[in-house]
């Protein structure tokens, strides 16, 4: 069964030490990620939910090796990514990709779509110069855009379309694992569903594994096989999606569940305190 584990996080910690003031006043240490254990099976979607500032994004950056942890380990396919050399890490990078929350900040405004999507291909020499254009067209079609869009610049696209470009860029390097960091929370509700469905389709066709980060339980419920609930840097509960919604064990999870708006004004929800 352990062969099945694609990613494992062991006792991961990331503390931020605020700079001391001129007069040496000591401030409190920020425990963004405080001892997280987590595993994701191959082909699975793990939802990570929690309120803003609970350390979800820091988790994502740690797993991708973008920031160094205070302590703890991340194993990707049984390899500890913090023990890898710079070169090895760079070679591993394409296997793990990230989709960002803000579709306006995640694309370089000075590169056209082809440049953005082809960059990873070129750098890792996945395609020849000739076949590269073909591949970019293919990727664009895969995410529901037109091949001729590759000659346009990011500002010519809407938020949802930009998010599709961002997804195409992530897919360009044939990843196995994708972290989606609030990929739909900056989008209109109608577009959210489209992007979610796209992500689910892609997962099926490309055998992807997702870590899906969101603060919106309904979105996470829609896409995840299992859900981990994060609160103040700790995972307070992990359960399958069905189980979590039927029978939440941690009080924080219960509170999150009651916070989901019910789309019917006549139904009164029981109030509870936390």
């Amino acid at each position, binding site marked *: 069964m352990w062969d099945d584990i694609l990613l494992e996080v062991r006792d991961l910690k990331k503390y931020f030490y605020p700079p001391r003031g001129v007069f040496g006043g000591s401030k409190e240490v920020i425990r963004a990620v405080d001892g997280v254990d987590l595993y994701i099976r191959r082909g699975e979607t793990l939802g990570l939910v929690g309120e803003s500032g609970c350390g979800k994004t820091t988790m994502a950056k740690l797993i991708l090796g*973008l920031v160094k942890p205070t302590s703890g380990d991340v194993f990707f396919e049984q390899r500890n990514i913090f023990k890898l050399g710079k070169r090895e*890490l760079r070679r591993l990078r394409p296997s793990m990709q990230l989709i960002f929350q*803000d579709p306006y900040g*995640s694309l*370089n405004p000075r590169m056209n779509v082809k440049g953005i999507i082809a960059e990873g291909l070129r*750098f890792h020499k996945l395609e020849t110069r000739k076949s590269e254009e073909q591949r970019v067209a293919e990727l664009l079609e895969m995410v529901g855009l037109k091949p001729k869009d590759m000659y346009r610049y990011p500002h*010519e696209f809407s938020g949802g379309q930009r998010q599709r470009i961002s997804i195409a860029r992530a897919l360009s390097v044939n990843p196995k694992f994708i972290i989606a960091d609030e990929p739909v929370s900056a989008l209109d509700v109608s577009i959210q569903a489209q992007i979610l469905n796209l992500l689910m389709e892609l997962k099926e066709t490309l055998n992807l594994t997702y870590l899906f980060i969101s603060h919106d339980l309904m979105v996470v419920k829609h896409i995840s096989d299992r859900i981990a609930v994060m609160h103040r840097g700790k995972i307070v509960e992990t359960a399958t999606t069905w189980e979590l919604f039927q029978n939440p064990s941690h009080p924080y999870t219960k509170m999150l569940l009651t916070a989901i708006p019910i789309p019917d004004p006549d139904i009164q929800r029981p109030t509870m305190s936390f």
Partner: protein
Amino acid sequence: MLKQRSLFWIYFKKNRLAIAGASTISAIFLMAIFAHLIAPYDPGETDIATKLAPPSFKHLLGTDQLGRDVFSRMLYGSRVSLSVGFVAVSISLFIGIIVGSIAGYYGKIVDSVLMRFVDIMMCFPAFFLMLTIIALLGPKIHHVMIVIGATSWMGTARFVRAEFLSLRERDFVQAAKVLGISDKRIIFRHMLPNALAPVFVTATIDMATAILIEASLSFLGFGVQPPAPSWGNILTEGRIYIFDAWWLTLFPGLAILITVLSFNLLGEGLRDALDPRLREEGIK
């Protein structure tokens, strides 16, 4: 891209002073390039018989103490001023961009070391440092260029560093890192192009400063050596005759004033035109 550029033009065109600055600079550049065609006399040609002649149709801006035509000399002098400005600013941009981007990208210890070096460089009174170096190396035009460039890059370095510090956290830079792109490529393809626009604005204003410094150095005899003409040394030579032949000092002085003013106006115009665009990007 198109939208941003046209937006920039709309703002820039509204600024009449900047347009005036830009046209004046273009005119001065053209005059410098075609000096050999426009100049009515050879700049070194002496004619003692007509020395210190006031401005007339024969000599538009009069003649100096050796009977040389001041207009022709100033045309050739503009080549010196502009090329010194141009080369010096290029050198300063080159050093400033390299130091600033390395400091801003790598941060931490690299940043501290480089920025302390910048602080040290800024502590020197630049003008006296230049005088000392030129006194040691000898007053040649390329020494002047190098020395001005090498003592004026610190502002650019700080500026580029600040831009890089904020760009480094931007998602598209993080995305490039996640793709496993090399640092070099991230710096040159993703960060620099997004940091350059405001840098070129300051470069325009730096041009003005560099031209002024060259004129000052030439005025003090540390710049371009006579008989080669430069605005600064025409001014020096005319200084002795300031009460008898005002045209010898007035015109080169005016030329320096107008050029420097134009560069400053252009620079400020560019900055104003760029600003709303930057604000707009910020909102997105």
